[in-house]
């Protein structure tokens, strides 16, 4: 197969992690194929298994540097469900302010 030009956008910024976009161009300069590739595998899916669930809020925050709050809150809420914790009104307000803060940055 005759290969045309190849464009590689790497790294894709403003997302946390490692993504690159590969564009294969044909001879006419049109896009023949486009691939979005995640070039790293960290394996949170694997190593979160077997850890105590109450440690999750401080492990899953490292999934993403843009939205650690979301991961923290999600795991904290899971813990609330599992251990039957209830958040009081002031706590709920802090949670919301915290979540809103993430949206802003």
């Amino acid at each position, binding site marked *: 197969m005759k290969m045309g030009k190849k464009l590689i956008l790497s790294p894709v910024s403003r997302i946390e992690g490692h993504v690159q976009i*590969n564009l294969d161009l044909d001879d006419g300069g049109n896009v023949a194929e486009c691939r979005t590739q995640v070039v790293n595998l*960290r*394996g949170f899916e694997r190593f979160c298994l077997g*850890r*105590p669930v*109450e440690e999750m809020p401080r*492990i899953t925050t*490292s999934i993403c540097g843009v939205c650690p709050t979301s991961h923290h809150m999600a795991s904290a809420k899971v813990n609330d469900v599992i251990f039957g914790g209830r958040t009081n009104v002031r706590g709920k307000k802090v949670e919301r302010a915290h979540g809103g803060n993430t949206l802003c940055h």
Partner: protein
Amino acid sequence: MDLPEADVGIISGGVRTEEMKELAKIMRDKVKILITLGSCACFGGIPALANLSSKEDLLNTVYSTKTTDKTDPPSVEIPPLLDRVYAVDEIVKVDLKIPGCPPAPGVIAEAITALLEGKEWSLPERSVCDQCGVIREKKAKVALKRAYEPADFDPAQGLEAMRCLNEQGILCLGPATKAGCDPKEPRCVKARMPCRGCFGPIREGAKPMVDMMNALTSVGLNPREVEDRMALFNRYIGGHNNLRVLPQKKR
């Protein structure tokens, strides 16, 4: 890959793929002073918990789940994974290490200022406990609890009015962790949460696993009761061969 020459280069993140390894080596050649910023670059960090499982195990878990069709891991144009997660200083020589998850702003400023003035800089070899002002009575009052149980403290008063978390039965990695996350008192303990060791071992090459066993025994707790202690005591320092694939326990 080509990088411009520079006086100072900063690497954040550990080394997981061949590409990153290559990049670290190129960067070493091109910069005069190489800094690792953050616990991932210094010790492996949270992603180095993956060192508890083999590469094949990771790929199998991610690419064949109960709810998705089984696919083969992609191979075209993807840099191959290394056998485990490495800290940057296992691959190349590092001149300055700034640990922390996240690194404390004060520590970064201190390190960069020292660099500009041409001085040597490293964090003092003190433990988080040396810096922590809680009440210690050298004897745990209860057995170990699970981490979700709240500490006993008065929110209106400072740390000097709270009993040591380890003595309260809430496992804290302070005894085996380097101080420096905050100039005054440890950040997590200030928020009444136990330390999890993001600043790494007190001395280069110290083993927090051993230090923590000693610290717990000395206050009368049984370290064998700690759930998942391998991963807990080495939470942020899975590089440097601190975490490895262990043979499966027979049940």
